């Protein structure tokens, strides 16, 4: 975890990489919602941190005054970006997550049909077999690291399968994505290195599919057109980069957070183990309570909101996790209620950039948790101090030592 100087005043000097915030951000959000509700910091090149549901709903719609061209929570500085041949060749965009109108809609429409509820359902048997195989690997030991031995592999191997790349290389893909997002967010050299590896990998793959099309996602993307023009090679590489990066540690975090919750809340664990009908609402509640993803927008035109002013060049963090704990919208917001009936959570974001892979993520969570509970209904955390959390852009547990009766 990144070491950061202590925070004295969260309203003017917040730090989303602060160790206590990464472990449990809820008290900070509650304090900020009362006091600001939009905090500011000069750390990490400066940014704004809204905390209310209403603000998040409003800000996603301020397009393009709040632009998506750089949605990372920490921007690389211009000096860091210089003289990178990979950047020169491929650019730094990952459409459609980095797109604004008018390019955004046609770019997004290329990938949306690949991830509708009906389109992701055929991947369910793959995910189910995968979960069983993973559990077979450790169930006899009566112990495992639920984040590293189970949760991480489910989205990594599934998205590799969906994109049509060798799922045997998924450990490598996880390393790249962690290098880019988890470790790279506060370490530009690392970020640039892994960005290069990912782009080069997909660059070569796109060329191979161009030469010899197959029945796979990349070949299908290459066969499409926008306004009668084939899609630029650079854009296809960017889309593949997005699918890999957005598809791994987000869902890994959600599955791990849910398992962490049930390992530390035995009443909820017993309830879910005995009431299978609760899975759909319980999964939405886990998504609400432990929303993993914070996105960012870059200000392109002066915006006055409440008693603060966003200036061009400022960064605004779309704090979806905090919005999902807003007591003005969610009854008993800081309590997990497995059968919560009113749950308009925005864990997948909101507005025109709503997570395109949300149905795939939901299917993976459903499979991961149902099969886990079917085979290991009783489990507990062995050592709370050994649990580590990643935070920043994507928050979730990275080590979860569990034991369970054999």
């Amino acid at each position, binding site marked *: 975890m990144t070491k950061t100087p202590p925070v004295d005043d969260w309203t003017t000097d917040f730090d989303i990489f602060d160790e206590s915030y990464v472990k449990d951000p809820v008290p900070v959000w509650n304090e900020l919602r009362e006091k600001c509700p939009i905090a500011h910091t000069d750390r990490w090149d400066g940014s704004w941190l809204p905390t209310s549901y209403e603000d998040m709903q409003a800000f996603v719609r301020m397009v393009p005054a709040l632009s998506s061209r750089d949605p990372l929570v920490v921007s690389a500085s211009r000096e860091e970006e210089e003289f990178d041949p990979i950047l020169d060749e491929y650019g730094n965009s990952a459409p459609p997550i980095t797109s604004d109108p008018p390019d955004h809609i046609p770019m997004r429409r290329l990938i949306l049909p690949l991830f*509708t509820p009906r389109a992701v359902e055929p991947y369910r048997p793959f995910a189910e077999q995968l979960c069983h195989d993973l559990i077979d690997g450790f169930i006899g030991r009566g112990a495992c690291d639920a984040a590293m031995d189970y949760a991480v592999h489910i989205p990594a191997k599934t998205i590799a399968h969906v994109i049509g790349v060798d799922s045997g290389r998924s450990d490598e893909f996880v390393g790249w994505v962690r290098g880019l997002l988890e470790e790279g967010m506060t370490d530009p050299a690392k970020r640039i290195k892994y960005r290069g590896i990912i782009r080069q990998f997909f660059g070569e793959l796109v060329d191979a599919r161009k030469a010899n099309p197959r029945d796979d996602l990349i070949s299908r993307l290459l066969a499409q057109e926008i306004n009668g023009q084939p899609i630029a090679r650079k854009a296809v590489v960017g889309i593949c980069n997005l699918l890999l990066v957005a598809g791994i540690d987000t869902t890994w975090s959600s599955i791990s957070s849910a398992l962490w919750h049930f390992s530390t809340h035995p009443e909820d664990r017993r309830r879910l183990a005995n009431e299978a009908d609760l899975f759909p609402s319980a999964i939405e509640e886990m998504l609400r309570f432990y929303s993993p993803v914070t996105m960012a927008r870059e200000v392109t035109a002066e915006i006055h909101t409440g008693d603060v002013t966003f200036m061009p060049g400022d960064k605004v963090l779309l704090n979806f996790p905090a919005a999902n704990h807003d007591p003005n919208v969610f009854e008993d917001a800081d309590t997990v209620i497995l059968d919560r009936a009113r749950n*308009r959570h*925005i864990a997948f974001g909101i*507005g025109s950039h*709503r997570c395109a892979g949300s149905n795939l993520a939901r299917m993976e969570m459903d499979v991961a948790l149902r099969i886990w509970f079917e085979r290991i209904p009783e489990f507990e955390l062995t050592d709370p101090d050994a649990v580590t959390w990643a935070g920043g852009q994507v928050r979730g547990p990275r080590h979860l030592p569990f034991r369970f009766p054999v």
Partner: protein
Amino acid sequence: MRVKVNAEKCEGHNRCCALAPELFDVDDYGTATALNDGDVPAELEAKAKLAVENCPEFAIEYVRDSAEEQAK
């Protein structure tokens, strides 16, 4: 009871379709539509309510039936 989806507001979270597949469908871009002109049979009213109250885009509305309206 009748419901309708405001296509302008719908951004394709597909929560309605997951919660009440008997009442909603989604197209290739995730945009939802209410099935059967939005008619909700009495036994599915609870599911319709769930769909309305879980839509993050506030895109699903109840439609007052005109006959019902006149009766009041």
